[in-house]
Protein backbone atom coordinates (compact mmCIF):
# COMPACT_ATOMS: atom_id res chain seq x y z
CA UNK A 1 0.00 0.00 0.00
CA UNK A 2 2.71 2.45 0.98
CA UNK A 3 4.55 1.43 -2.15
CA UNK A 4 1.63 2.32 -4.40
CA UNK A 5 1.15 5.62 -2.63
CA UNK A 6 4.80 6.47 -2.89
CA UNK A 7 4.96 5.46 -6.55
CA UNK A 8 1.90 7.51 -7.35
CA UNK A 9 3.29 10.51 -5.57
CA UNK A 10 6.53 9.96 -7.40
CA UNK A 11 4.80 9.92 -10.77
CA UNK A 12 2.75 12.97 -9.95
CA UNK A 13 5.76 14.88 -8.76
CA UNK A 14 7.51 13.84 -11.95
CA UNK A 15 4.53 15.02 -13.95
CA UNK A 16 4.62 18.36 -12.22
CA UNK A 17 8.32 18.41 -12.77
CA UNK A 18 7.96 17.66 -16.48
CA UNK A 19 5.23 20.23 -16.67
CA UNK A 20 7.47 22.90 -15.23
CA UNK A 21 10.26 21.74 -17.51
CA UNK A 22 8.01 21.97 -20.54
CA UNK A 23 6.60 25.34 -19.64
CA UNK A 24 10.11 26.54 -19.07
CA UNK A 25 11.32 25.34 -22.45
CA UNK A 26 8.23 26.90 -23.99
CA UNK A 27 9.12 30.16 -22.29
CA UNK A 28 12.64 29.86 -23.64
CA UNK A 29 11.33 29.20 -27.12
CA UNK A 30 9.07 32.25 -26.94
CA UNK A 31 11.93 34.28 -25.57
CA UNK A 32 14.34 33.33 -28.31
CA UNK A 33 11.73 33.97 -31.01
CA UNK A 34 11.10 37.33 -29.37
CA UNK A 35 14.78 37.97 -29.55
CA UNK A 36 14.92 37.00 -33.22
CA UNK A 37 11.98 39.27 -33.99
CA UNK A 38 13.59 42.12 -32.13
CA UNK A 39 16.79 41.66 -34.07
CA UNK A 40 15.05 41.60 -37.45
CA UNK A 41 13.02 44.62 -36.41
CA UNK A 42 16.19 46.46 -35.56
CA UNK A 43 17.79 45.39 -38.81
CA UNK A 44 14.77 46.56 -40.78
CA UNK A 45 14.86 49.85 -38.93
CA UNK A 46 18.47 50.32 -39.88
CA UNK A 47 17.79 49.28 -43.46
CA UNK A 48 14.96 51.78 -43.66
CA UNK A 49 17.03 54.66 -42.35
CA UNK A 50 19.80 53.58 -44.72
CA UNK A 51 17.39 53.92 -47.65
CA UNK A 52 16.54 57.44 -46.63
CA UNK A 53 20.21 58.26 -46.82
CA UNK A 54 20.59 57.76 -50.56
CA UNK A 55 23.72 59.10 -52.24
CA UNK A 56 24.48 60.51 -55.67
CA UNK A 57 26.91 59.50 -58.39
CA UNK A 58 28.20 60.85 -61.67
CA UNK A 59 28.46 58.72 -64.76
CA UNK A 60 31.08 59.87 -67.26
CA UNK A 61 32.43 58.50 -70.51
CA UNK A 62 35.15 55.98 -69.90
CA UNK A 63 37.83 58.07 -71.61
CA UNK A 64 37.17 61.03 -69.38
CA UNK A 65 40.26 62.19 -67.50
CA UNK A 66 39.12 62.68 -63.92
CA UNK A 67 41.65 65.42 -63.25
CA UNK A 68 39.75 67.55 -65.73
CA UNK A 69 36.53 66.88 -63.84
CA UNK A 70 38.04 67.93 -60.55
CA UNK A 71 39.67 70.95 -62.19
CA UNK A 72 36.67 72.45 -63.97
CA UNK A 73 33.72 70.54 -62.57
CA UNK A 74 32.78 68.83 -65.81
CA UNK A 75 34.41 66.74 -68.51
CA UNK A 76 35.11 67.44 -72.14
CA UNK A 77 34.41 63.89 -73.23
CA UNK A 78 30.93 63.09 -74.44
CA UNK A 79 28.75 60.02 -74.79
CA UNK A 80 25.51 59.34 -76.62
CA UNK A 81 22.42 60.70 -74.95
CA UNK A 82 20.72 57.35 -75.50
CA UNK A 83 22.90 55.88 -72.74
CA UNK A 84 20.49 57.26 -70.26
CA UNK A 85 17.61 55.44 -71.95
CA UNK A 86 19.59 52.25 -71.94
CA UNK A 87 20.17 52.63 -68.25
CA UNK A 88 16.57 53.60 -67.55
CA UNK A 89 15.25 50.64 -69.50
CA UNK A 90 17.45 48.21 -67.64
CA UNK A 91 16.28 46.70 -64.40
CA UNK A 92 18.69 48.75 -62.37
CA UNK A 93 17.72 48.64 -58.73
CA UNK A 94 20.34 50.71 -57.01
CA UNK A 95 19.51 54.04 -58.71
CA UNK A 96 16.32 56.04 -58.27
CA UNK A 97 16.68 59.06 -60.55
CA UNK A 98 18.63 59.56 -63.77
CA UNK A 99 19.49 63.02 -65.08
CA UNK A 100 21.44 63.33 -68.34
CA UNK A 101 23.27 66.62 -68.80
CA UNK A 102 25.58 68.50 -71.03
CA UNK A 103 27.78 70.95 -69.19
CA UNK A 104 30.29 73.49 -70.41
CA UNK A 105 31.77 76.78 -69.26
CA UNK A 106 30.83 79.42 -71.80
CA UNK A 107 31.15 83.15 -72.28
CA UNK A 108 27.90 85.09 -71.98
CA UNK A 109 28.95 87.44 -74.78
CA UNK A 110 26.07 89.83 -74.18
CA UNK A 111 27.16 90.50 -70.57
CA UNK A 112 30.86 89.54 -70.83
CA UNK A 113 30.29 87.01 -68.08
CA UNK A 114 31.55 83.44 -67.57
CA UNK A 115 28.64 81.10 -67.18
CA UNK A 116 28.49 77.40 -66.46
CA UNK A 117 25.90 76.27 -68.96
CA UNK A 118 24.06 73.09 -68.08
CA UNK A 119 21.60 71.46 -70.39
CA UNK A 120 19.13 69.33 -68.52
CA UNK A 121 16.40 67.12 -69.80
CA UNK A 122 14.45 66.48 -66.70
CA UNK A 123 14.28 63.12 -65.16
CA UNK A 124 14.36 60.01 -67.26
CA UNK A 125 11.76 57.64 -65.88
CA UNK A 126 13.18 54.29 -64.89
CA UNK A 127 11.13 52.00 -67.04
CA UNK A 128 10.32 48.95 -64.97
CA UNK A 129 9.23 50.90 -61.92
CA UNK A 130 6.26 52.21 -63.90
CA UNK A 131 3.71 54.12 -61.87
CA UNK A 132 5.54 53.60 -58.63
CA UNK A 133 8.40 55.94 -59.37
CA UNK A 134 9.14 58.69 -56.98
CA UNK A 135 8.38 62.33 -57.54
CA UNK A 136 10.78 64.09 -59.85
CA UNK A 137 13.74 65.54 -58.07
CA UNK A 138 14.56 68.33 -60.48
CA UNK A 139 12.09 70.20 -62.62
CA UNK A 140 13.08 70.11 -66.25
CA UNK A 141 13.68 73.34 -68.08
CA UNK A 142 11.53 73.84 -71.15
CA UNK A 143 12.91 74.80 -74.51
CA UNK A 144 13.26 78.59 -74.69
CA UNK A 145 13.42 78.91 -70.93
CA UNK A 146 16.42 79.65 -68.74
CA UNK A 147 17.05 79.33 -65.02
CA UNK A 148 19.75 81.53 -63.50
CA UNK A 149 22.02 81.15 -60.51
CA UNK A 150 22.19 83.89 -57.93
CA UNK A 151 25.18 85.81 -59.25
CA UNK A 152 23.77 85.84 -62.74
CA UNK A 153 20.40 87.40 -61.93
CA UNK A 154 21.53 89.48 -59.00
CA UNK A 155 24.42 91.16 -60.79
CA UNK A 156 22.30 92.13 -63.79
CA UNK A 157 19.11 92.69 -61.87
CA UNK A 158 17.11 90.07 -63.71
CA UNK A 159 13.78 88.65 -62.60
CA UNK A 160 11.63 85.69 -63.60
CA UNK A 161 9.72 86.26 -66.86
CA UNK A 162 12.35 88.73 -68.06
CA UNK A 163 13.53 87.99 -71.57
CA UNK A 164 17.28 87.84 -72.07
CA UNK A 165 19.66 87.18 -74.93
CA UNK A 166 22.13 84.33 -74.52
CA UNK A 167 24.57 83.18 -77.19
CA UNK A 168 22.48 84.95 -79.77
CA UNK A 169 19.17 83.46 -78.76
CA UNK A 170 16.32 84.79 -76.67
CA UNK A 171 15.31 83.06 -73.47
CA UNK A 172 12.66 83.68 -70.89
CA UNK A 173 13.79 83.49 -67.28
CA UNK A 174 11.58 81.02 -65.44
CA UNK A 175 13.39 80.88 -62.13
CA UNK A 176 16.17 82.59 -60.22
CA UNK A 177 18.00 80.76 -57.45
CA UNK A 178 19.08 82.25 -54.15
CA UNK A 179 22.76 82.31 -53.34
CA UNK A 180 24.19 78.85 -52.64
CA UNK A 181 27.85 79.69 -52.30
CA UNK A 182 28.78 77.16 -54.96
CA UNK A 183 29.36 77.13 -58.68
CA UNK A 184 25.56 77.04 -58.91
CA UNK A 185 25.65 80.81 -58.42
CA UNK A 186 27.14 81.31 -61.90
CA UNK A 187 25.22 78.50 -63.51
CA UNK A 188 22.51 78.78 -66.14
CA UNK A 189 20.16 75.86 -66.80
CA UNK A 190 18.53 75.24 -70.18
CA UNK A 191 16.83 72.43 -72.00
CA UNK A 192 19.35 69.77 -72.99
CA UNK A 193 18.46 69.94 -76.66
CA UNK A 194 19.03 73.71 -76.67
CA UNK A 195 22.45 73.32 -75.13
CA UNK A 196 23.34 70.53 -77.56
CA UNK A 197 22.39 72.96 -80.34
CA UNK A 198 24.32 75.92 -78.87
CA UNK A 199 27.43 73.82 -78.29
CA UNK A 200 27.03 71.91 -81.54
CA UNK A 201 27.01 68.55 -79.81
CA UNK A 202 23.87 66.93 -81.15
CA UNK A 203 22.52 64.03 -79.11
CA UNK A 204 25.55 64.07 -76.89
CA UNK A 205 25.91 64.46 -73.18
CA UNK A 206 28.97 64.60 -70.99
CA UNK A 207 27.51 63.22 -67.82
CA UNK A 208 24.63 61.48 -66.17
CA UNK A 209 23.74 62.41 -62.65
CA UNK A 210 22.26 59.51 -60.80
CA UNK A 211 20.47 60.60 -57.67
CA UNK A 212 19.33 58.77 -54.55
CA UNK A 213 21.38 55.70 -55.18
CA UNK A 214 20.60 53.12 -52.58
CA UNK A 215 22.79 50.31 -51.71
CA UNK A 216 22.46 48.42 -48.46
CA UNK A 217 25.90 46.92 -48.55
CA UNK A 218 28.92 48.64 -47.16
CA UNK A 219 30.64 48.60 -50.54
CA UNK A 220 27.85 50.72 -52.03
CA UNK A 221 29.93 52.27 -54.80
CA UNK A 222 31.42 48.96 -55.79
CA UNK A 223 27.99 47.39 -56.10
CA UNK A 224 26.60 50.25 -58.16
CA UNK A 225 29.68 50.31 -60.37
CA UNK A 226 29.29 46.64 -61.01
CA UNK A 227 25.63 47.02 -61.87
CA UNK A 228 26.13 49.99 -64.19
CA UNK A 229 29.22 48.54 -65.83
CA UNK A 230 27.10 45.61 -66.96
CA UNK A 231 24.62 47.95 -68.62
CA UNK A 232 26.94 50.69 -69.84
CA UNK A 233 30.38 49.24 -70.36
CA UNK A 234 31.97 52.46 -71.63
CA UNK A 235 31.46 54.57 -68.58
CA UNK A 236 33.17 55.42 -65.37
CA UNK A 237 31.45 56.23 -62.15
CA UNK A 238 32.42 58.50 -59.30
CA UNK A 239 30.54 59.45 -56.21
CA UNK A 240 29.40 63.01 -56.19
CA UNK A 241 31.07 65.31 -53.67
CA UNK A 242 32.85 64.32 -50.53
CA UNK A 243 29.96 65.68 -48.50
CA UNK A 244 27.87 62.80 -49.67
CA UNK A 245 30.77 60.47 -49.04
CA UNK A 246 31.07 61.67 -45.47
CA UNK A 247 27.36 61.17 -45.12
CA UNK A 248 27.68 57.64 -46.41
CA UNK A 249 30.54 57.00 -44.03
CA UNK A 250 28.39 58.18 -41.19
CA UNK A 251 25.61 56.02 -42.46
CA UNK A 252 27.81 52.95 -42.49
CA UNK A 253 29.02 53.77 -39.05
CA UNK A 254 25.44 53.91 -37.87
CA UNK A 255 24.88 50.55 -39.43
CA UNK A 256 27.96 49.06 -37.85
CA UNK A 257 26.99 50.42 -34.45
CA UNK A 258 23.53 49.01 -34.90
CA UNK A 259 24.93 45.64 -35.81
CA UNK A 260 27.20 45.72 -32.84
CA UNK A 261 24.28 46.61 -30.61
CA UNK A 262 22.32 43.72 -32.01
CA UNK A 263 25.24 41.43 -31.35
CA UNK A 264 25.62 42.68 -27.80
CA UNK A 265 21.93 42.32 -27.26
CA UNK A 266 22.00 38.79 -28.61
CA UNK A 267 24.97 37.89 -26.44
CA UNK A 268 23.37 39.26 -23.29
CA UNK A 269 20.13 37.47 -24.12
CA UNK A 270 22.02 34.25 -24.68
CA UNK A 271 23.74 34.66 -21.32
CA UNK A 272 20.38 35.25 -19.73
CA UNK A 273 18.98 32.10 -21.32
CA UNK A 274 22.00 30.08 -20.24
CA UNK A 275 21.67 31.40 -16.69
CA UNK A 276 18.00 30.64 -16.59
CA UNK A 277 18.45 27.14 -17.96
CA UNK A 278 21.08 26.59 -15.27
CA UNK A 279 18.63 27.64 -12.58
CA UNK A 280 16.03 25.45 -14.20
CA UNK A 281 18.36 22.46 -14.14
CA UNK A 282 19.14 23.11 -10.49
CA UNK A 283 15.44 23.39 -9.76
CA UNK A 284 14.78 20.12 -11.58
CA UNK A 285 17.57 18.43 -9.63
CA UNK A 286 16.21 19.66 -6.32
CA UNK A 287 12.70 18.47 -7.11
CA UNK A 288 13.99 15.12 -8.31
CA UNK A 289 16.08 14.71 -5.16
CA UNK A 290 13.13 15.69 -2.98
CA UNK A 291 10.73 13.28 -4.62
CA UNK A 292 13.21 10.42 -4.55
CA UNK A 293 13.95 11.24 -0.94
CA UNK A 294 10.28 11.17 -0.10
CA UNK A 295 9.70 7.87 -1.82
CA UNK A 296 12.71 6.40 -0.09
CA UNK A 297 11.36 7.64 3.22
CA UNK A 298 7.93 6.15 2.53
CA UNK A 299 9.29 2.79 1.45
CA UNK A 300 11.92 2.54 4.16
CA UNK A 301 9.51 3.56 6.88
CA UNK A 302 7.70 0.42 5.81
CA UNK A 303 10.64 -1.65 7.01
CA UNK A 304 9.20 -2.08 10.52
CA UNK A 305 6.06 -3.83 9.35
CA UNK A 306 8.12 -5.70 6.79
CA UNK A 307 10.23 -7.08 9.65
CA UNK A 308 7.19 -8.62 11.34
CA UNK A 309 6.37 -10.40 8.12
CA UNK A 310 9.91 -11.61 7.91
CA UNK A 311 9.73 -12.87 11.46
CA UNK A 312 6.46 -14.67 10.81
CA UNK A 313 7.63 -16.13 7.53
CA UNK A 314 10.87 -17.16 9.20
CA UNK A 315 8.97 -18.99 11.92
CA UNK A 316 6.87 -20.65 9.21
CA UNK A 317 9.99 -22.07 7.65
CA UNK A 318 11.17 -19.49 5.13
CA UNK A 319 14.88 -19.10 5.64
CA UNK A 320 18.02 -17.73 4.03
CA UNK A 321 17.85 -17.07 0.32
CA UNK A 322 14.24 -18.35 0.21
CA UNK A 323 13.21 -15.58 2.56
CA UNK A 324 15.19 -12.88 0.73
CA UNK A 325 13.77 -14.00 -2.62
CA UNK A 326 10.25 -14.03 -1.26
CA UNK A 327 10.48 -10.56 0.25
CA UNK A 328 12.19 -9.00 -2.76
CA UNK A 329 9.85 -10.54 -5.29
CA UNK A 330 6.90 -9.38 -3.25
CA UNK A 331 8.39 -5.88 -3.12
CA UNK A 332 8.96 -6.00 -6.84
CA UNK A 333 5.37 -7.09 -7.47
CA UNK A 334 4.17 -4.28 -5.24
CA UNK A 335 6.43 -1.86 -7.09
CA UNK A 336 5.10 -2.98 -10.47
CA UNK A 337 1.52 -2.91 -9.25
CA UNK A 338 2.08 0.51 -7.74
CA UNK A 339 3.66 1.81 -10.92
CA UNK A 340 0.82 0.44 -13.06
CA UNK A 341 -1.71 1.90 -10.68
CA UNK A 342 0.08 5.24 -10.74
CA UNK A 343 0.23 5.07 -14.54
CA UNK A 344 -3.49 4.43 -14.71
CA UNK A 345 -4.20 7.38 -12.47
CA UNK A 346 -1.78 9.67 -14.26
CA UNK A 347 -3.19 8.59 -17.64
CA UNK A 348 -6.37 10.24 -16.45
CA UNK A 349 -4.93 13.07 -14.40
CA UNK A 350 -2.07 14.34 -16.53
CA UNK A 351 -4.07 15.10 -19.72
CA UNK A 352 -6.80 16.73 -17.64
CA UNK A 353 -4.54 18.95 -15.57
CA UNK A 354 -1.59 19.58 -17.83
CA UNK A 355 -2.88 18.84 -21.31
CA UNK A 356 -2.13 16.28 -23.97
CA UNK A 357 1.17 17.77 -25.07
CA UNK A 358 2.71 17.21 -21.66
CA UNK A 359 1.11 13.80 -21.43
CA UNK A 360 2.74 12.81 -24.71
CA UNK A 361 6.05 14.35 -23.76
CA UNK A 362 6.10 12.40 -20.49
CA UNK A 363 4.87 9.05 -21.69
CA UNK A 364 6.41 8.99 -25.15
CA UNK A 365 9.89 9.85 -23.93
CA UNK A 366 11.70 6.51 -23.55
CA UNK A 367 14.20 7.80 -20.99
CA UNK A 368 11.36 9.28 -18.98
CA UNK A 369 9.50 5.99 -19.11
CA UNK A 370 12.61 4.14 -18.09
CA UNK A 371 12.96 6.33 -15.03
CA UNK A 372 9.25 6.20 -14.29
CA UNK A 373 9.11 2.42 -14.34
CA UNK A 374 12.54 1.42 -13.07
CA UNK A 375 13.14 3.86 -10.24
CA UNK A 376 10.05 3.02 -8.16
CA UNK A 377 10.50 -0.72 -8.65
CA UNK A 378 14.20 -0.57 -7.87
CA UNK A 379 13.50 1.61 -4.85
CA UNK A 380 10.83 -0.79 -3.62
CA UNK A 381 13.22 -3.72 -4.02
CA UNK A 382 16.03 -1.75 -2.41
CA UNK A 383 13.85 -0.85 0.53
CA UNK A 384 12.93 -4.51 0.98
CA UNK A 385 16.48 -5.75 0.53
CA UNK A 386 17.84 -4.44 3.81
CA UNK A 387 15.23 -5.95 6.18
CA UNK A 388 15.16 -9.12 4.11
CA UNK A 389 18.87 -9.68 4.47
CA UNK A 390 18.80 -8.63 8.10
CA UNK A 391 15.84 -10.93 8.74
CA UNK A 392 17.53 -13.83 7.03
CA UNK A 393 20.50 -13.45 9.34
CA UNK A 394 18.54 -13.08 12.59
CA UNK A 395 16.62 -15.66 14.54
CA UNK A 396 12.89 -15.24 13.88
CA UNK A 397 12.13 -15.08 17.59
CA UNK A 398 14.42 -12.09 17.98
CA UNK A 399 12.69 -10.24 15.16
CA UNK A 400 9.23 -11.06 16.45
CA UNK A 401 10.03 -9.98 19.94
CA UNK A 402 11.65 -6.74 18.88
CA UNK A 403 8.79 -5.62 16.70
Amino acid at each position, binding site marked *: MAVSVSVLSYIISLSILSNSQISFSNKMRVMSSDLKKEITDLENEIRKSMKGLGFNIHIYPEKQDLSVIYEQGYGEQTMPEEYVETLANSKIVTVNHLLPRLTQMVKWEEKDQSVLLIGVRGEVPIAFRGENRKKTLIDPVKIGDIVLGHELHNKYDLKPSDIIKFMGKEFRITATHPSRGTVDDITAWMALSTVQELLEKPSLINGILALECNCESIDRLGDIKKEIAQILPNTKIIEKESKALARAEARNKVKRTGEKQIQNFAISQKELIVNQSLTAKLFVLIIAALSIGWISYLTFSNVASRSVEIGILGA*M*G*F*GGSNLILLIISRAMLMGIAGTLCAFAVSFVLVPVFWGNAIFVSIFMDPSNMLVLTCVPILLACGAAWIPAVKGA*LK*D*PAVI*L*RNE
Partner: protein
Amino acid sequence: MNNTVSEVTLRADGITKSYSSESGLIRVLNHINLELSHGDFITISGPSGCGKSTLLAVLGALQEPDSGTVEYDGISPYRLSAKDRAQFRSKNIGFVFQDFNLVPYLTVRENILCPGIVNSSNDWGTRTAELIESLGLSDRSNHYPDQLSSGEKQRTALARALLVEPTIIFADEPTGNLDQENGQRVLDHLTSYANDGATVMMATHDMDAFNTGNKHLQMDEGSILTLINDNGNN
Protein backbone atom coordinates in the same frame (compact mmCIF):
# COMPACT_ATOMS: atom_id res chain seq x y z
CA MET B 1 -3.74 -42.80 25.99
CA ASN B 2 -0.58 -44.71 25.44
CA ASN B 3 2.06 -43.35 27.79
CA THR B 4 3.94 -46.48 28.62
CA VAL B 5 6.21 -46.66 25.61
CA SER B 6 6.46 -43.01 24.95
CA GLU B 7 9.15 -42.21 22.50
CA VAL B 8 11.28 -39.14 23.12
CA THR B 9 10.60 -36.40 20.56
CA LEU B 10 12.60 -33.58 21.99
CA ARG B 11 15.55 -33.54 24.29
CA ALA B 12 17.05 -30.36 25.71
CA ASP B 13 20.27 -30.45 27.67
CA GLY B 14 21.78 -27.63 29.72
CA ILE B 15 20.11 -24.80 27.88
CA THR B 16 21.30 -21.39 28.96
CA LYS B 17 20.39 -18.07 27.46
CA SER B 18 21.38 -14.59 28.62
CA TYR B 19 20.58 -11.10 27.41
CA SER B 20 22.84 -8.15 27.91
CA SER B 21 21.20 -5.11 29.46
CA GLU B 22 22.41 -1.88 31.05
CA SER B 23 22.80 -3.68 34.37
CA GLY B 24 24.91 -6.42 32.81
CA LEU B 25 23.99 -9.89 31.66
CA ILE B 26 20.55 -11.19 32.56
CA ARG B 27 20.33 -14.95 32.61
CA VAL B 28 16.93 -15.85 31.22
CA LEU B 29 17.38 -19.61 30.96
CA ASN B 30 19.53 -21.36 33.49
CA HIS B 31 20.64 -24.92 32.66
CA ILE B 32 17.30 -26.25 31.49
CA ASN B 33 17.05 -29.98 30.93
CA LEU B 34 13.88 -31.34 29.41
CA GLU B 35 12.53 -34.38 27.61
CA LEU B 36 9.29 -34.48 25.66
CA SER B 37 7.57 -37.47 24.15
CA HIS B 38 4.94 -38.10 21.53
CA GLY B 39 1.49 -37.37 22.88
CA ASP B 40 2.79 -34.98 25.54
CA PHE B 41 0.83 -31.82 26.13
CA ILE B 42 3.10 -29.83 28.42
CA THR B 43 1.96 -26.56 29.87
CA ILE B 44 4.33 -23.97 31.35
CA SER B 45 3.55 -21.27 33.83
CA GLY B 46 5.57 -18.85 35.88
CA PRO B 47 5.86 -15.17 36.63
CA SER B 48 6.12 -12.76 33.83
CA GLY B 49 9.68 -12.49 32.60
CA CYS B 50 10.73 -15.84 33.99
CA GLY B 51 11.73 -17.05 30.53
CA LYS B 52 8.74 -19.01 29.20
CA SER B 53 8.71 -17.42 25.76
CA THR B 54 12.44 -17.66 25.49
CA LEU B 55 12.34 -21.34 26.32
CA LEU B 56 9.70 -21.99 23.67
CA ALA B 57 11.72 -20.08 21.08
CA VAL B 58 14.92 -21.94 21.88
CA LEU B 59 13.23 -25.31 21.84
CA GLY B 60 11.32 -24.36 18.68
CA ALA B 61 14.54 -23.64 16.79
CA LEU B 62 13.59 -19.98 16.59
CA GLN B 63 16.39 -18.69 18.75
CA GLU B 64 19.80 -20.12 19.35
CA PRO B 65 20.77 -20.71 23.00
CA ASP B 66 24.11 -19.58 24.42
CA SER B 67 24.91 -23.14 25.40
CA GLY B 68 23.25 -26.51 25.64
CA THR B 69 21.78 -28.73 22.97
CA VAL B 70 18.37 -29.19 21.45
CA GLU B 71 17.76 -32.47 19.70
CA TYR B 72 14.82 -33.79 17.71
CA ASP B 73 15.08 -37.50 17.05
CA GLY B 74 18.82 -37.11 16.73
CA ILE B 75 18.75 -33.88 14.73
CA SER B 76 20.17 -30.73 16.29
CA PRO B 77 18.54 -27.82 14.50
CA TYR B 78 21.16 -25.35 15.69
CA ARG B 79 23.86 -27.32 13.91
CA LEU B 80 22.03 -26.67 10.65
CA SER B 81 22.41 -23.62 8.46
CA ALA B 82 19.80 -20.91 8.90
CA LYS B 83 18.13 -22.00 5.69
CA ASP B 84 18.11 -25.69 6.58
CA ARG B 85 16.93 -24.85 10.08
CA ALA B 86 14.03 -22.89 8.56
CA GLN B 87 13.30 -25.87 6.35
CA PHE B 88 13.43 -28.11 9.40
CA ARG B 89 10.98 -25.85 11.24
CA SER B 90 8.61 -25.84 8.34
CA LYS B 91 8.49 -29.63 8.34
CA ASN B 92 8.46 -30.44 12.03
CA ILE B 93 7.39 -27.49 14.15
CA GLY B 94 4.23 -25.44 14.41
CA PHE B 95 3.84 -22.14 16.25
CA VAL B 96 0.88 -20.36 17.78
CA PHE B 97 1.49 -16.93 19.30
CA GLN B 98 -0.46 -14.78 21.69
CA ASP B 99 -0.85 -12.00 19.11
CA PHE B 100 -1.55 -14.38 16.22
CA ASN B 101 1.22 -13.14 13.88
CA LEU B 102 -0.77 -13.58 10.70
CA VAL B 103 0.58 -12.11 7.47
CA PRO B 104 -1.71 -9.10 6.99
CA TYR B 105 -1.82 -9.14 3.20
CA LEU B 106 -2.67 -12.82 2.91
CA THR B 107 -6.16 -14.26 3.27
CA VAL B 108 -7.07 -16.83 5.91
CA ARG B 109 -6.57 -19.56 3.38
CA GLU B 110 -3.22 -18.19 2.18
CA ASN B 111 -1.99 -17.74 5.75
CA ILE B 112 -2.82 -21.33 6.50
CA LEU B 113 -1.05 -22.46 3.32
CA CYS B 114 2.06 -20.49 4.19
CA PRO B 115 4.24 -23.22 5.76
CA GLY B 116 3.28 -25.53 2.87
CA ILE B 117 4.97 -23.30 0.30
CA VAL B 118 8.39 -24.33 1.58
CA ASN B 119 7.35 -28.00 1.54
CA SER B 120 6.27 -27.83 -2.06
CA SER B 121 6.34 -31.65 -2.42
CA ASN B 122 2.78 -31.92 -1.16
CA ASP B 123 -0.46 -30.58 -2.47
CA TRP B 124 -1.75 -28.75 0.57
CA GLY B 125 -5.13 -27.83 -0.87
CA THR B 126 -7.07 -30.69 0.62
CA ARG B 127 -5.38 -30.39 3.98
CA THR B 128 -6.10 -26.66 4.04
CA ALA B 129 -9.74 -27.23 3.19
CA GLU B 130 -10.01 -29.82 5.99
CA LEU B 131 -8.47 -27.48 8.52
CA ILE B 132 -10.68 -24.56 7.45
CA GLU B 133 -13.66 -26.83 7.85
CA SER B 134 -12.68 -28.35 11.18
CA LEU B 135 -11.72 -25.00 12.72
CA GLY B 136 -14.99 -23.37 11.64
CA LEU B 137 -13.43 -20.88 9.23
CA SER B 138 -15.35 -21.92 6.10
CA ASP B 139 -17.06 -18.58 5.56
CA ARG B 140 -13.89 -16.70 6.42
CA SER B 141 -11.38 -18.40 4.14
CA ASN B 142 -11.06 -15.46 1.75
CA HIS B 143 -10.99 -12.77 4.42
CA TYR B 144 -7.92 -10.85 5.45
CA PRO B 145 -6.72 -10.93 9.07
CA ASP B 146 -7.98 -7.44 9.88
CA GLN B 147 -11.50 -8.60 8.99
CA LEU B 148 -11.42 -11.39 11.58
CA SER B 149 -12.32 -11.60 15.23
CA SER B 150 -9.58 -12.55 17.69
CA GLY B 151 -10.92 -16.09 17.97
CA GLU B 152 -10.96 -16.49 14.20
CA LYS B 153 -7.44 -15.09 13.99
CA GLN B 154 -6.16 -17.55 16.53
CA ARG B 155 -7.94 -20.46 14.85
CA THR B 156 -6.35 -19.38 11.58
CA ALA B 157 -2.96 -19.35 13.28
CA LEU B 158 -3.72 -22.74 14.76
CA ALA B 159 -4.67 -24.12 11.35
CA ARG B 160 -1.45 -22.72 9.96
CA ALA B 161 0.51 -24.48 12.73
CA LEU B 162 -1.31 -27.73 12.05
CA LEU B 163 -0.95 -27.69 8.26
CA VAL B 164 2.17 -29.78 7.85
CA GLU B 165 1.19 -32.03 10.78
CA PRO B 166 4.32 -31.16 12.72
CA THR B 167 5.69 -33.44 15.36
CA ILE B 168 5.52 -30.60 17.88
CA ILE B 169 3.53 -27.43 18.35
CA PHE B 170 4.73 -24.54 20.47
CA ALA B 171 1.97 -22.29 21.70
CA ASP B 172 2.94 -19.10 23.54
CA GLU B 173 -0.10 -17.89 25.46
CA PRO B 174 -2.46 -18.83 22.64
CA THR B 175 -5.51 -17.97 24.75
CA GLY B 176 -4.13 -14.72 26.16
CA ASN B 177 -6.10 -12.52 23.80
CA LEU B 178 -9.22 -14.67 23.63
CA ASP B 179 -12.43 -14.88 25.62
CA GLN B 180 -13.27 -17.99 27.60
CA GLU B 181 -15.20 -19.70 24.81
CA ASN B 182 -12.68 -19.10 22.05
CA GLY B 183 -9.83 -19.95 24.38
CA GLN B 184 -11.46 -23.26 25.17
CA ARG B 185 -11.85 -24.05 21.47
CA VAL B 186 -8.14 -23.54 20.92
CA LEU B 187 -7.27 -25.67 23.93
CA ASP B 188 -9.58 -28.42 22.68
CA HIS B 189 -7.88 -28.45 19.31
CA LEU B 190 -4.43 -28.58 20.88
CA THR B 191 -5.51 -31.38 23.20
CA SER B 192 -6.92 -33.47 20.41
CA TYR B 193 -3.76 -32.89 18.36
CA ALA B 194 -1.64 -34.16 21.25
CA ASN B 195 -4.00 -37.08 21.61
CA ASP B 196 -3.29 -37.89 17.97
CA GLY B 197 0.33 -38.50 18.99
CA ALA B 198 2.01 -35.17 18.49
CA THR B 199 3.69 -33.06 21.13
CA VAL B 200 2.29 -29.74 22.31
CA MET B 201 4.13 -27.27 24.50
CA MET B 202 2.16 -24.30 25.73
CA ALA B 203 3.11 -21.32 27.89
CA THR B 204 0.18 -19.74 29.72
CA HIS B 205 -0.83 -17.53 32.59
CA ASP B 206 -4.32 -18.99 32.70
CA MET B 207 -4.91 -21.65 35.38
CA ASP B 208 -7.54 -23.53 33.34
CA ALA B 209 -5.21 -23.66 30.38
CA PHE B 210 -2.33 -24.71 32.62
CA ASN B 211 -4.36 -27.64 33.84
CA THR B 212 -5.23 -28.75 30.30
CA GLY B 213 -2.12 -30.78 29.53
CA ASN B 214 -0.73 -33.98 30.95
CA LYS B 215 2.56 -32.38 32.09
CA HIS B 216 2.84 -29.11 33.93
CA LEU B 217 6.02 -27.13 34.27
CA GLN B 218 6.55 -24.33 36.77
CA MET B 219 9.34 -21.90 36.00
CA ASP B 220 10.98 -19.15 37.95
CA GLU B 221 13.93 -16.97 37.01
CA GLY B 222 15.04 -19.19 34.19
CA SER B 223 14.89 -22.46 36.03
CA ILE B 224 12.39 -25.28 36.28
CA LEU B 225 10.76 -25.25 39.67
CA THR B 226 8.57 -28.32 39.30
CA LEU B 227 7.51 -30.66 36.57
CA ILE B 228 4.30 -32.48 37.41
CA ASN B 229 3.25 -35.49 35.42
CA ASP B 230 -0.49 -36.26 35.65
CA ASN B 231 0.34 -39.96 35.70
CA GLY B 232 2.33 -39.47 38.87
CA ASN B 233 5.72 -39.99 37.24
CA ASN B 234 8.20 -37.21 37.75
